[in-house]
């Protein structure tokens, strides 16, 4: 399963970005093959519609689960119709590594 995590930087030690639509990087983590790729978010500085545009991006990558700090109002219903699960983590100090470990732990 592919998981998208919003990240503030492009290393796995970066912290989680609390915004979904305007996050700096998307980390695409494949829980089966353990592969990680970083995708800079092209919609970071959009005046409006950053959320839906980011949804398009992660959906086109075949992601089934999105981890972020918070999601905007326009995004939730779109994710619902695409059958993509959302996870909100209120703790901004979590690093990408810890989240990946948590996901692995679940699959054991």
């Amino acid at each position, binding site marked *: 399963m592919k998981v998208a995590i919003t990240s503030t930087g492009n290393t796995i030690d970066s912290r989680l970005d609390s915004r979904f639509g305007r996050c700096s990087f998307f980390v695409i983590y494949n829980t089966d093959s353990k592969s990680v790729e970083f995708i800079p978010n092209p919609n970071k500085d959009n005046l409006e519609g950053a959320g839906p545009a980011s949804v398009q991006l992660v959906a086109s990558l075949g992601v089934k*689960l999105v*981890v972020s700090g918070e999601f905007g109002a326009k995004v*939730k*219903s779109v*994710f*619902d119709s*695409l*059958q*993509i*699960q*959302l*996870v*909100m*983590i*209120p*703790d901004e100090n979590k690093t990408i590594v810890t*989240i990946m470990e*948590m*996901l692995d*732990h*679940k699959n*054991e």
Partner: protein
Amino acid sequence: MSRPKRIRKMTNPPNFRGFRPMGLSRENNPVVMNYEEYEAIRLSDFELNSQKEAAQAMNVSRPTFTRIYESARRKVAQAFVLGSPIVFEGGKVYFDSDWYYCHTCGCWFDRPDKEKELKCCILCGSSEIEQYKGDSEPKVKEDVCICPVCGKEKIHSDGVPCHQEICPDCNCRMIRKGSPKNKFYQK
């Protein structure tokens, strides 16, 4: 190009796909009922809310709720009389109640697949999760009548048109605050 619809809020969709009339030799064309219409009937006729409360629960205006409800009733009547099946489908809604909270890692997650029950946290696998119950009472924005002459405000009472309210200070008829008429009186 019609005006964009406001997204209606609803709790949970029905956990079945629709209804079918009994004892018909052949099926008629189904009546498609939107989720928002189902929700309107549920709030009004099952939970016995007033239309004002129901409209607030769905996050739409009271007249809009009435329109949704009316179209829902017409579809039910059509299905009853013509013996058409009812299919629940579509509508511009978002679901508000299916967020879960995990006590172990403190994260929130939702449930995209409404058919499946969630047993454990998607992130850490702990089973200590609970469903989010939503805000207890939505904040009601009161309508206010305002006197166009002296600006005195008064809480609007339902069922009494504002122009029947007389301002106690200057005996002038009041108007609804925020109505377009107001701009003529702005000093």
